[in-house]
């Protein structure tokens, strides 16, 4: 599994895959926006980069090291939380997902250049767009191999 989560389409962004348990909500607005999940004994930070109050949103996941969760839990203010998020996520954001209100996670992709909390989300948007184009190409190829209707 390495630095990557196992993500399942249709899941909630804060419960993104099989056996992913929400361990800590660090920041919320009606629903979790930043927090920590655990999957197969590994902890991952998640944060919403676009669409906090919209019905479509983009989320990033970063594998945490031992002690990171405790560091995050010790923060008392928004500023210290943001500072600590930058430190523990530095270059580690390796998965991005696009989620909608009705369908949950619809699209997931890996990020070649690891993202850090506070980075411009545009790189994640571009990576998801590329993934969508790849999926579309594969679907078109499948469609082309279907037998013609009799």
């Amino acid at each position, binding site marked *: 599994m390495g630095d990557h989560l196992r993500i399942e389409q249709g899941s909630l962004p804060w419960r993104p895959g099989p056996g992913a348990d929400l361990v800590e909500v660090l920041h919320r607005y009606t629903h979790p926006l930043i927090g920590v999940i655990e999957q197969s004994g590994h902890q991952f930070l998640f944060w919403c980069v676009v669409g*906090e109050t919209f019905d479509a949103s983009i989320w990033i996941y970063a594998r945490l090291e031992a002690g990171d969760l405790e560091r995050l839990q010790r923060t*008392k203010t*928004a500023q210290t939380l943001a500072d600590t998020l930058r430190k523990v996520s530095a270059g580690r954001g390796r998965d991005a997902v696009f989620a909608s209100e009705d369908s949950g996670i619809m699209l997931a992709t890996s990020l070649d250049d690891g993202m850090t909390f*506070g980075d411009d989300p545009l790189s994640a948007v571009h990576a998801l767009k590329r993934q969508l184009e790849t999926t579309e190409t594969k679907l078109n190829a499948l469609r082309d191999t279907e037998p013609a209707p009799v």
Partner: protein
Amino acid sequence: MASSSPRWQTGQQVDPGTVLTQVGTVDSQLSGNWARHRFRFQYLLRTEQEETEMSCYVGRLTIVDAVGLISLGVRPVMPNDVVRYSQANALLNLGFSVRHTPDRIEEHVSITSAGDWDPSVGELFDGCFVEYVKGA
């Protein structure tokens, strides 16, 4: 943002005279001679997404301040950011619970309904907001 001595305790009822800010989005279109702005604010809880309370912020926050709180200060205001305002009294008079739930964001407020937050409750909630402000 939060200070070392919190102004409010968790669970404390919000003073009826307090202005509340809810953050949302707006779709804007120029069509013919008309500018159309369609505001989108959450008014129903999504129980399937484990939502149990509606978040708002204490105070009449500018869009810049509200976006700063919701994003922990890491993203700028975008053209589709929008806020709307209510007074706690309007919600309390309709039976909503309006309580301070400060964490790292001291201004965080949780609004709940005594019963199920069904569409009729959502309409009452929505009707408590009377002023809308569009962003950049």
